[in-house]
């Protein structure tokens, strides 16, 4: 359940679109500006700090797309670890305070040419292919819920409050049936409190697919990380 998806519960879909688009616009503008500064500024530390803004923007984009787990991972790994490593690297290689005019080659025009060419080709391809593709977010749905008979005393209060038709004035040891249709009317916060319901958020789906379908890539990545760790130590260690 992302922040934006929560917003979606409270606003109509058109309003959501506007809010999301405004958010996207701001984030995208900040990202493009910062990315531009990252690749052009003469101050190495400033480049790293601009990179932080880009990375935070990417995290925001992920949350906007409903993948808050990847967003949090982005913050944890990129900002918390990779940029810090960059700053370490910069400071250990004695970057000077202030601008360093030697950071760029004389071949700027060549880079710019390739970049623009690439952008034109990719942009044309994207516009051509996905011109009308629209993103639709489905609410996270419970994967495992089936009709269930429960004692009223076992049902949390918010669920009872949210389903007046089902519970009515029954209480205590009365047995009621919560059907799939009733369940669907509940907001996700309440859904997860229904006995027997297992609400699969994005996290659980990601975990499920990493540890079943993509277990081999996962193991490969773990080995890769170990190899990189050892490699980095061997390469950087003083004899």
């Amino acid at each position: 359940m992302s922040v934006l998806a929560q917003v979606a519960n409270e606003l109509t879909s058109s309003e959501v679109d506007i809010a999301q688009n405004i958010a996207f616009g701001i984030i995208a503008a900040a990202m493009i500006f910062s990315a531009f500064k990252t690749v052009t500024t003469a101050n190495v530390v400033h480049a790293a700090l601009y990179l932080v803004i880009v990375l935070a923007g990417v995290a925001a984009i992920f949350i906007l797309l409903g993948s808050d787990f990847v967003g949090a991972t982005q913050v944890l790994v990129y900002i918390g670890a990779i940029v810090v490593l960059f700053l370490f690297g910069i400071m250990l290689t004695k970057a000077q305070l202030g601008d360093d005019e030697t950071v760029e080659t004389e071949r700027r025009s060549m880079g710019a040419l390739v970049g623009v060419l690439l952008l034109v080709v990719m942009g044309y391809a994207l516009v051509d292919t996905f011109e009308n593709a629209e993103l639709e977010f489905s609410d996270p749905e419970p994967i495992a819920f089936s009709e269930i008979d429960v004692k009223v005393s076992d049902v949390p209060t918010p669920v009872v409050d949210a389903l007046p038709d089902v519970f009515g004035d029954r209480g205590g040891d009365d047995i009621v049936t919560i059907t799939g249709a009733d369940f669907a009317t509940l907001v996700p916060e309440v859904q997860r409190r229904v006995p027997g319901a297992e609400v699969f958020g994005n996290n659980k789906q990601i975990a499920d697919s990493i540890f079943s379908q993509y277990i081999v890539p996962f193991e490969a990545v773990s080995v890769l990380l170990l190899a990189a760790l050892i490699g980095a130590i061997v390469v950087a260690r003083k004899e």
Partner: protein
Amino acid sequence: MSGLMSFLAVEAVPDVSFTTDANWFLENVWIIPLLPVLSFFAIIFFGKRLPQGGAEIGIAAVGVAFVLAVLTNIAWLDHRDNFDYHDGQTRTHSEKHSDGDDHASAVIDVDGVPETVVLSFAEEGEDAGEESHPSVAVVNEMSWLTNGGIDFKAGTMLDGPAALMLFVVTLISLLVHIYSTDYVSGDRRYTHFFAFLSLFTGSMLAYVVSHNILQMIVTWELVGLCSFALIGHWWEEKPNSDAALKAFLTNRVGDIGLLVGMVILFFSAGGTFDVIEINEKAVSGEISQTALTWAAISLTAAVMSKSGQFVLHTWLPDAMAGPTPVSALIHAATLVVAGVFMIARLYPVFWYGFVIPGSSINGLALIGSITVVFGGLLAFVQNDIKKVLAYSTVSQLGYMVLALGVGAWTAAIFHLFTHAFFKAGLFLGSGSVAHSVHSFDMKNDMGGMRKFMPTTFKTFIICSIALAGVFPFAGFWSKDEILVGTGGFGVGAEKANGEYTLMLVMGLVGAMLTGAYMTRCIYLTFFGEFRGHGHPHESGPRITIPLIILSVFAFGAGFLNFPPGFLTGDAKKPSFWQERFGHFVEPLAAYFPPISHSVPSWWLAIIASVIGLIGPAIAYFYYFVLVDRKANETGEKLTELPNGPTSSIGFLKAGHTLLVNKYYLDHLYQNVIVGFTKGPLSKAAYWFNQNVLDGVVDEAGRSAERSGRFIYRFIDQGFIEGVVNGSGRASSTGGQGLRKIQTGKVQQYAALLFAGATVLAGIFMIVN
């Protein structure tokens, strides 16, 4: 009385295979293998700091595992007889195919409506007038990982043979652990020894409760690894480490067969590792005959190496280099029976693959019967007491494989069961003697030990008699059952699985040999004059008590499976104490082939007993009468006649030499195969290379030279030269130009790369 299944009828195979809901002990058998494995780690990490060097952890773990195994067996008894397969928790064969991917727990329906399982097997047990009661295996599985659409599962499968093996392995391992605290005390790798003993036990236990062939392969290899570590326990001495390597490498040969066979099964069964599913498909004919045959042949190779069948048995006697308790464990309960157990576990594959029913010879039975006789013969020429026992094991394993080969499944398992006790008893007894005289050499260091070690002597005698198959000791019942099961000469009536006359003859010869070589062994060890040094004495209680326990089992284990008709006189009249063992172990379910049970034969039992006693009688006459008399005459410490038949009669002498050289198999492997490759084969290859290949090449060279000269003179100089020079100049100029591009500047390369990719992408876009 519903518990007794009819043993005469070709039982209708029920459509039920397994259940996931049973007694707690049956569902949670995974704890039993886990305990010794945990104990392995505990000993490795903390063993050295403990007062007993880690032995106490091992004994405690195996002891608890033994108690659990006993409880599991009791629970299995109850489950076997009283499990109600009509309730909703059993999955049937047909249903399993419909939702085969689901987890086992999915069977219990969410909406609470119990599924009714209609058993479709016809009640054919009319002969005995009883309904066949299925023996439903208990399965506890979980999904380990999913990849490429295949669900890799991990779990346990408990049925009769598995429950039995749990009991045997834990009991023998427990006794071996206790025995070892005395036997290897003061050893430099005492802790290490117990750690591997635990792991060995744990892997074997995990092997017998394996739920799928993947687990079987893993634990099979683990067992092999542990045996390597234990055989090479005293690796400082070259022969020991050589023996360990030999065991490991010979097993590797068979393991290739194992892998190939398992892979064949996996693919031919439609991509499943599940033992029950593979067996079901083999029974129901969903796997083609060809695939089954090839799988069975490959797996037989694995059995030959692991269970020491003839031609690949050579590692087994050498494996005696390990400490004696290890030999006992290897030969009685763990390593070598793994192969036999694998045949039993995947029996439908062999049953249909080798076309066992209704035939009179097949590969499995042939290998087994050859091993029985050839292994037994080798035992006659050994001076090392453990090697006698080792060849005896080879021979007895031959019996088991023979029994499986002729379709006497229950007899094979029964022999495995009884053999475990008396062979463990014999090994531990030989260890006890050796511990006292510090040698294994019967001829030079033993003799007359009965005076010094009365307890060891008595237990050794009991176990030997059991091994020789004398009524009413354990070996008699199991061996007799195997012989009847062959159906040779028409014994076992019309109900036997085939008419394996050759196997019956070989089995009888084997029985005769068994008694004879054991008599020789007993004479050399326990009778005559003491030929060694020092003052031998009886071993301590930690050694003798396991021996006594094992000899009690060696005497009484056979009573578990009286043949039908015994004591009642009428084979068609079942009584409660008959066939208890078969009833306990034999799966009667959709994953087991419809084997039939032979009718016991009085006259065969008598003939076998007589033949079995002829061997010992001859040996007795030779040693106890002839040799003893000669020894008394000359006053020397004799172990054989100076002018015996093997040195005076020509063909016997030749045979003796053949046996001493172990049929020249080691020569075959080392000198002939390796030597041939190194010597004649490479020489031949060299000659071929020198004369034929080089001749061809030289001739080709010469003719090429001639034609080259011709071409040079007429074509090259005139026409080609100009073109060549021109192209040379062109490439030189081009190279000079292109050289400028190779600047060594990474970013320029990157720029070209990106630009090239972009241009390509643009072209693709335009084309599309």
